[in-house]
């Protein structure tokens, strides 16, 4: 890990216009939870729906997309990554440092707001808030690693990420049950389900498979992006 690279990356994420998206999206979810609570419609079933559809279905992939690609795609696009790569720092360390920054941002802007929204709705009831906090934290780490890898592999990282999250996890996962086995959102729900005892919530993918898959995907993506960064070519195709 390299503190300077981490600092530069944080500055790029928090100092740019990107921060508005990072703040606005969780705020909307927490605001919606607060609204439902204040109008006395917050029950456990609704909390689960909000967590599943908003936190896992929208906030998590969007944050993964913005954070996972933002930490490195911006520098590749502008070509300034060569100044970072030309320093005597092992390339994998550059990738791992950026991943660590992305993970920390996912925890702050996706997992903690999820816990807040869940807690606002039902308090500690049935462990819904805690379960989805742990789930989105684990899923957020995987999303960050996968989208970081796609950013290193291609210039169209955001578009490919959107297709994965909306078409594969959303449309195909909704129609073909088998596709749910290969969905970070489903693995997130499995982790959440293992903590929560809510009767309104049942994950489709068994916990054992989900946990192993999350670890394999995260580690695999991290190592691959580290290796891939060693032979990165800087050419534009816009």
């Amino acid at each position, binding site marked *: 890990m390299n503190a300077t690279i981490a600092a530069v990356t944080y500055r790029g994420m928090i100092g740019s216009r990107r921060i508005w998206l990072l703040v606005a999206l969780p705020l909307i979810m927490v605001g919606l939870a607060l609204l439902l609570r204040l109008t006395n419609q917050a029950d456990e*079933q609704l909390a689960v729906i909000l967590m599943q559809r908003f936190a896992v279905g*929208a906030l998590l992939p969007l944050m993964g997309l*913005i954070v996972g*690609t*933002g930490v490195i795609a911006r520098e590749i696009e502008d070509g300034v990554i060569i100044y970072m790569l030309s320093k005597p720092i092992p390339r994998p360390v550059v990738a791992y440092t950026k991943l660590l920054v992305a993970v920390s941002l996912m925890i702050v802007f996706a997992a903690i707001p999820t816990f807040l929204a869940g807690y606002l709705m039902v308090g500690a009831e049935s462990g819904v808030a805690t379960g989805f906090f742990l789930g989105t934290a684990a899923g957020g780490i995987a999303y960050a690693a996968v989208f970081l890898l796609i950013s290193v592999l291609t210039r*169209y990282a955001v578009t490919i990420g*959107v297709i994965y999250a909306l*078409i594969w996890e959303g449309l195909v996962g909704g129609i073909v049950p088998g596709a749910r086995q290969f969905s970070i959102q489903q693995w997130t729900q499995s982790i959440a389900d293992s903590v929560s005892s809510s009767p309104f919530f049942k994950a489709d993918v068994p916990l054992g498979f989900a946990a192993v898959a999350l670890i394999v995907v995260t580690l695999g993506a991290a190592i691959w992006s580290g290796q891939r960064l060693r032979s990165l070519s800087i050419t534009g195709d*816009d």
Partner: protein
Amino acid sequence: MHPEAAPDIRGVIHDIGYRRYDGPRLGRLHGFGTLFLHGLRGVFGLGRTAKAKVMPFLMVTIMLLPAVVAIAVMALLKEAPLPYQQLSVIMQPVLAIFLASQAPVLVALDQRFHVLPLYFSRPGSRMDYVLARYSAMAAALFLILALPLTVEFVGELLVDPPGPVHLGAYLSSMAGAVLLAITLGALGLAVAAATHRRGLGVAAVIAVYLVLTVMSGVLLGVFMATGNDDKAQWANLINPFHLVDAVRAWAFGHPPGDFAYPDGLAGGLIPLGAMLLVIAASLGLLAARYRKVGS
């Protein structure tokens, strides 16, 4: 020059044959047309790299799938086709991805590569540029919707399944496609123009779509569960695709199996007003953005 004629001259201006341009000037309208056509081609990746063509043509192909399936169903089962009106609502994720991935192509790249000063130094105002890009985005959205509708309609005419031809449904769907194109084109372009980074623009447009859709879905669920069906219908309109479809359904009548929208005069005028407000606000945002960017 004769040195003895003016011995104290230190500098001279030679006529080396520069001439004014006195050919035809094509003017503002031609500039608008060129920007529009360049934008429309750019959205589909024409005139750009092979990689830039992959996404738009993938989306066009996916959009055609339901039409192909509908023609096959008509031919094999002799049944009525998929209702034309539902295409835009069923395929909304694909349309949203098309809009998100291609809107930044129209507005972000010009900002990123600093070509705006070149456009703005020609005849034609900044608003001309905005309107040309907006027309290109709207035309592209209309085409990607009109193509499958037309393919399905031609298929229906050729297969000729039992029952009357759905000409009215086809035409009202085409009108709905126009409404959708001018509304979502404006919204997507306004969001994408806020940044010169293509990737961030894609993420921002898809974030707006996804958040509105999910919010609409959650509120719909809440109101359905508590028996407030009328409120649920209004929550349904938070989704921009449903908002435009509600206007279409109000103007041309609800087809069977349509999604639940508010009834009555208010159920038409309020979505129509909201739709016009979205267009006006988006164009206002674009105008404000282009007053300062690229100078």
